[in-house]
């Protein structure tokens, strides 16, 4: 019996840790596809649309700008056309386009003999009641969140998109929500940077946009991709003709929190 006890103690010291390793896998490269990212909001009168090509998976991400596209947005209410001019690095710019809530806008991108279209409707901005910082403990780790509290308009579909920038870093997509489960309720959205934790002392910029359903679908599809998905697929897009990316015209507000400190509130 004594020897058995010894064996038990030996085996209880077993390891059950999972591990990660970089591997080489033969990936099939796809020919470059046109990508259009047209995320327009009403924060400023200056707007950018990016037109570029996707990169085969085994190659390095780099300059793949499409330089000779003709890019324009037409307001379907009054048929006014806003031309976007090429600025370099695949970016097309317009100054003076002022989108209005409820307005329907059509994007047209022409590259050689190919045309890509999309339509987006500008949703009204859902105002927030308060903005707070909080720290939550998740699996032994303290993480800082920016909490947006607001009342969701009842009996209508609402979609919320958040982009976040830490300090001088560029804005990155942070979160996308719908109100399927909480239509008309007092809602709190806790926003953080999933890859790069917010720390005390940071300056945080968040753009909160009310988007339409198709833009929600694009981001929600991307967000739901995980290695446990049975079969990952490309996100649904409102762009025609097989273009990747999306076209969004949304009402947005920018929130800046300087010198993040827990238990202190600030607003823009």
């Amino acid at each position, binding site marked *: 019996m004594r020897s058995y006890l010894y064996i038990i103690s030996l085996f209880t010291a077993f390891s059950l840790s999972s591990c990660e390793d970089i591997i080489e*896998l033969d*990936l*099939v490269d796809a020919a470059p596809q046109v990508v259009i990212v047209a995320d327009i909001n009403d924060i400023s009168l200056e707007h950018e649309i990016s037109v570029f090509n996707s*990169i085969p998976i*085994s190659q390095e991400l780099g300059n793949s700008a499409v330089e000779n596209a003709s890019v324009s947005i037409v307001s379907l209410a009054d048929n006014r056309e806003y031309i976007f001019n090429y600025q370099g690095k695949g970016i097309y710019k317009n100054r003076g386009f002022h989108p209005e809530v409820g307005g329907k806008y059509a994007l047209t991108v022409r590259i050689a003999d190919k045309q890509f279209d999309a339509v987006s409707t500008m949703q009204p901005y859902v105002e927030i009641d308060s903005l707070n910082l909080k720290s939550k403990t998740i699996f032994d780790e303290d993480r800082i969140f920016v909490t947006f509290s607001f009342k969701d308009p009842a009996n209508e579909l609402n979609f919320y998109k958040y982009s976040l920038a830490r300090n001088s870093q560029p804005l990155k997509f942070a979160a996308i929500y719908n109100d399927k489960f909480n239509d008309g309720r007092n809602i709190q959205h806790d926003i953080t940077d999933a890859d790069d934790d917010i720390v005390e002392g940071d300056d945080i910029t968040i753009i909160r946009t009310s988007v339409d359903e198709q833009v929600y679908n694009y981001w929600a599809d991307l967000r739901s991709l995980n290695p446990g998905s049975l079969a990952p*697929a490309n996100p*649904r897009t409102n762009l025609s003709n097989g273009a990747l990316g999306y076209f969004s015209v949304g009402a947005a507000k920018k929130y800046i929190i300087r010198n993040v400190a827990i238990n202190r509130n600030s607003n823009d």
Partner: protein
Amino acid sequence: MHRTKNFLITLLLLILIPVTLLAQQNYTISGYINDSKSGETLLNATVRILNSSLATSTNAYGFYSISVPKGTHVLRSQLVGYSAFEQTLTVDKNITYNITMSTASQQLEEVTISSLSKSKNVDNPQMGVVNLNVSEIRKLPVVFGEKDILKTIQLLPGVASGGEGSANFYVRGGSGDQNLILLDEAIVYNASHLFGFFSTFNSDAIKDVNLYKGGIPAQYGGRASSVLDIAMLDGNAKKYAVEGGIGLIASRIKFDGPIVKDRGSFMISGRRTYADMFLLASKDETVKSSKLYFYDLNIKANYKFDDRNKLFLSGYFGQDVLGYGDLFRFDWGNATGTLRWNHIFTNKLFSNTSLIFSDFNYHVGINNDNSDFDISSRIQNINLKQDFQYYPSNRSTLKFGVHALDQTIKPASIDATDTSAVNSILIQKRRGLDLAAYISHEWSATDRLKLIYGLRMTNFMMLGPGSYYDFDAAGNPVQATDYKKGEIVQNYFNLEPRFSANYILRDNKSLKLSYNRNIQNLHQLTNSTSSLPTDQFVLSSRTIKPQIADQVALGYYQNFNNDRYEFSVESYYKNLSNQIDFKNGADLQANELLDGELVFGDGRAYGLEFFLKKRAGKLTGWLSYTLSKSERKFEAINNGAWFNARQDKTHNLSVVAMYQLSKTWTAGATFVYSTGDAVTLPAGKYAVDNRTVYYYTERNGSRMPNYHRLDLSMTYEPVANKDKRYYSSWSFGLYNAYARKNAYLIDFRDSETNPNITETYKVALFSLVPSVTWNFKF
């Protein structure tokens, strides 16, 4: 109703015609076969009349019936692991003769060859079936030292594993939801614990397992690809016994004994894991107070009123509990109950009546900041079965019966408090009634040619109340119709022909051919690689048509070296229609319009299976190799072109060996090798909002790395001391002995050194996992 009536008349005719044709004058010997020590009924034991071709075997309740001419005969019965039983009987009338058989001595040495029953591999007209005896597999190495039926069947040809350590399995290219899993006839909706790492079947409580991969007999229906029929032990009818085991991850205990000696017995078997003990090591208070365990309980009792009437009551109850502090609670479990009455009308007519209940439910509770809500879902059925077995002559066995299955699904609904940040959502219940009737005739047409042919008729009705939608081609709802309670929303009538033929070429060689059509009216919507209890079940509806599988199989069987070796090669082709997948971005949660999120298509699977088994000697085990293909086709997916099913594994090899080292020690080893799963990997990439987004082209056009693994075990079973009631044994295991890091999943990320480069990484779940289990008995 008109249809139902016609259907019953057709059935009656079908039953009566062969019976009148086959009725003959002969005497019948019939009875039960039991284990001499425990009184357990013995299934699949062969009974033959020496110096004749007359033979039969016991049914699922241990009953046999054999017709013989008047005279003196030697009756011989055999079963793996038991000493052969022989008795001379003088037959001048119908006689009831119950047989008890004793287990063969533990050492499977050369002398016990005489007790080795003749393998049914060659003789049995049934093909595509594997029978596993729990005692046969108890020395196999398994992960965490937990014997598991569902993991053992993955080592058989035609069965693919659902992933590392997973209890999920795929049969002959079929989907995970196409396996009918029965525990004492009750449908088990979710056969796994802890997200698939353990099956719900506690080996201590199991007597016998049959897996049908093809040529599925007519008495089974409801799933497209396979039937896994598991029978629980009845309990020791002679004396009280306690046995159990303590392992690293779980402990088990079983108590059984007679209710009234030789008349009735009971069995209670329980198991609980204690994985959450490891959580106590955490510094985090919330993690410490978290829960992660499962338990299950098998209960059975039977009582024999007389030689003709026997009553069985069996039940299963299992629950998984997972909780993160008070913030999150997730529990799920199955419950089944079966009440059976075996009645012997005459020596030739055996009847079983079953009333079965089965339930699977899950429950999620969230209590987080301002969100406070519960999600719950349930699927339930009540099943009434009347089955007959009629033995008109020694050349014929007729099986026929009627089944009624009433299933109700309560899809996940949300129940929130008024102050919660979420709304309550109630999704309508769905109810379906499956009526089935079947008849099957097993017939030895000549000494060389044996046939099983049969027909199953199923009438599925989706019943109200509720609102039901019709959808346009794009999946948008166009019209809702309200139905009253009990009103038929949709009716599907299907015929399922079943056919198997066996032609015995010469002694110990045979050729078999089979065809079966199977209909499936319950569908499980899975969109993750691991089996989640939250997978939504749906019934056939106005939009969802019954899944249909047609399978043809051809096989060659040979036994050699005195039945010590069993060899078979089977090839199959399976055609699947009305298969289900999802639209891109399908919303499957709490969605009243769920049917509109689905797409429908076809499937095909084909393969070649080799199986070589050594049944006796110091070294026993088997070698199994499958070469196969499984594909799907949906108009909306992959541009309408055929693509590999996720579980498509070109090569699948298993080697299982057990070696008797001494009277007390047995070594075991299993080696598995399989082609990696077919997966969809990115073919391109682009950056949006400063995040890398991947571009996908062909569905399941790439492969995970190939999978291989070696497991080892050692079992110490001391020679029993007859003076002592108490007995204990040990088993030691080494899972993944050469610590192969098999990819559980692969993912992509920006390289840390150069974010413009994509790197592929794999996550391996288990490295080498040692285990030890101590088993006791008294």
